[in-house]
């Protein structure tokens, strides 16, 4: 008999828990500008290194460097900065509103604003977004009226979802924002189908979807990659790797073994790994992938490497499972600060202007809240009529639902 070693079951564990010092020393951060920008029609095999690198544009001196620099007009950058600042102000306010018991639930995107905002600004207006629940920045960048978003969160009489969805699970067709599901991952292969439909019709619209790194473990992520590859669908599949999935660190989704961008390789798709807190890098990667998709060359997977700065949602207390000051140690910093510093470095912005921008955002959000509350809140009884509960199950109400509606006195 051979001398056999005994097996043991390996359970991945993060190397930092509450009480530990934050430690990101194992994370390699290549210098900005170190990667070439390949042609958008490059063969996927030649793109493999991009799944393991990190596309970065903003360097330590706040300069935009290297081939991936999208060379954007300062006005374009200032719009992006404004969208991010507004997103953060909105998030901050909504959490406060939740703490006051005015809404039941909220999900912040703090620290990851660049991922959604840069994307929204880099693609075309009639492209379609299939979001998870953390891309409010996309909606804000697209100009969705804050009051509509807030009425949704308040489930009040003007909630465009008629009180049927949890706060944050928006649907805004007008702003190219698909109805958010509470079930993780389902949107990704739907985005592929939507993109296939655009190709089928001979249109030029592309789809963009966002999925959390934890959710890449769902079968639906695989289906998205596989269908996108097989039918060469014009879709961009973003993995927002914010390193946490509620209490589970990214290693639970396989992140200790390899990058999430590398998931693309096995389907013959390009996978780009991008500094998700670098507005310019995200913007550039989005442009690259959109150009490739529109040229009928199919899908791109983009891993947006970032950090979930706050709790998973208002129901979560992250200090139970990770050092509470980790975000401050996160080497890729804060996307808002980084873009602000860049704009200042190129002479297009100042601290004063920035403070004014924040003040303006905070005021706007405060006024929106006032307007929303003047319509009403679920807590004080403002909501869609009870009859709305029975509508839209089908296009036409069948007899049994009509009877139930009657029984409910609605």
């Amino acid at each position: 008999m051979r001398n056999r070693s005994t097996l043991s079951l390996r359970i991945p564990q993060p190397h930092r828990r509450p009480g530990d010092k934050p430690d990101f020393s194992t994370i390699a951060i290549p210098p900005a500008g170190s990667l070439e920008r390949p042609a958008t029609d490059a063969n996927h095999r030649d793109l493999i290194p991009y799944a393991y690198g990190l596309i970065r544009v903003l360097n330590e001196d706040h300069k935009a460097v290297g081939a991936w620099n999208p060379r954007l007009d300062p006005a374009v950058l200032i719009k992006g900065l404004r969208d991010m600042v507004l997103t953060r102000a909105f998030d901050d306010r909504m959490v406060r509103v939740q703490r006051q018991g005015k809404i039941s639930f909220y999900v912040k995107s703090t620290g990851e604003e660049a991922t959604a905002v840069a994307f929204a600004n880099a693609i075309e207006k009639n492209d379609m977004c299939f979001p998870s629940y953390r891309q409010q920045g996309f909606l804000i960048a697209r100009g969705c009226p804050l009051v509509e978003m807030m009425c949704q969160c308040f489930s009040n009489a003007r909630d465009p979802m008629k009180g049927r969805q949890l706060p944050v699970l928006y649907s805004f067709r007008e702003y190219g924002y698909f109805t958010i599901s509470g079930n993780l991952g389902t949107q990704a292969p739907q985005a592929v189908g939507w993109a296939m439909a655009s190709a089928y019709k001979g249109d030029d619209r592309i789809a963009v979807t966002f999925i959390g790194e934890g959710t890449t473990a769902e079968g639906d992520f695989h289906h998205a990659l596989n269908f996108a590859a097989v039918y060469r669908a014009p879709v961009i599949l973003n993995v927002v790797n914010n390193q946490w999935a509620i209490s589970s660190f990214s290693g639970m989704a396989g992140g200790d073994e390899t990058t999430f961008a590398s998931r693309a390789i096995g389907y013959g798709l390009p996978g780009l790994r991008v500094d998700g807190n670098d507005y310019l890098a995200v913007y550039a990667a989005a442009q690259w992938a959109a150009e490739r998709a529109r040229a009928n060359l199919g899908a791109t997977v983009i891993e947006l490497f970032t950090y979930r700065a706050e709790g998973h949602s208002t129901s979560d207390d992250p200090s139970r499972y990770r050092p509470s000051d980790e975000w401050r140690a996160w080497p890729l910093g804060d996307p808002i600060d980084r873009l602000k510093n860049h704009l200042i470095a190129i002479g297009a912005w100042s601290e004063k202007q920035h403070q004014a921008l924040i003040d303006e955002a905070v005021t706007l959000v405060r006024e929106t809240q006032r307007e929303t509350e003047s319509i009403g809140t679920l807590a004080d009884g403002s909501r869609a009529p009870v009859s709305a509960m029975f509508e839209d199950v089908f296009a036409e109400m069948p007899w049994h639902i009509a009877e139930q509606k009657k029984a409910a006195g609605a």
Partner: protein
Amino acid sequence: MPTMTMIQALNSALDVMLAKDPDVLVFGEDIGYFGGVFRVTEGLQKKHGQTRCFDSPIGEAGLVAAAIGMGAYGLRPIVEIQFADYIYPAYDQIVSEAARIRYRSAGEFHVPLTIRTPYGGGIYGGQTHSQSPEALFTHVAGLKTVVPSNPYDAKGLLISAIEDDDPVIFLEPKRLYNGPFDGHHDKAVTPWAKHKLSEVPDGHYAVPLGKAAVARAGSAVTVLTYGTMVHVAIAAAEETGIDAEVVDLRTLMPIDIETIVRSVQKTGRCVVAHEATLTSGFGAELCALVQEHCFWHLEAPIERVAGWDTPYPHAFEWDYFPGPKRLADGLKRALEN
């Protein structure tokens, strides 16, 4: 009028809709060049082109999800699940997504999706080619569930399903594909051509969803059933001489309560029959509805005749299948009291 088998009728429905509406497309495993394992899509790729009728990877969740995305874009996708037994990987996309998108988006998006799939036993398919999962869909708000029993209805109902703006689960009784089948597996196979409902117009027509048909008029007892079991029920009535009224439900959700109530109030007795396992089958819902709506007319307990509460075992095809004998026993029990 031409006579068609159920396969030809279904093929014709797809053909008519592909020709009529450029937003209709059909996809699924092995359905493109090959024409499907039951040949329902035969010739459609050749006639309408590769992007109108095509193969899919073997990933039921992915294919339903892609169809949902297409539906959201404005297309009218029709997907085939090769056997109803293989629909479960897509169950989350059907239940959590297709069924709820209209509701949760307050009507901003909807999914005009048709999922066709062969179901039921009678072909020695063993436990994974014989299942009848209809009750798993009728429980889900937002889905319509349709089961035809003859070529004429099959075509008309499939056209209605495709034209419907909501997701429809369209269950095709595979044992009826090539001929009516009354459960007498030892008798020679009858061709559809001999059945009056095999006369199928070539062009477009619709059989409305939500409307049952009285497949056999009678006054002694009502049989509520659908799919293959319609023929079994008629055979049981003829053979026992029991004057049963056989209601072919055709659509399970939304159910045609009026036809049900009219019949049971007339007969005062009721048997519900399906191939699916008994417990929590759609027959349970029929029992509940009938006793709710017709309690004071009922002269005996409602009898259920159904598949046993076991998987569908290969060597016991005709012991498992609720054939004319079991149905006849059910009719007799319903008349006993």
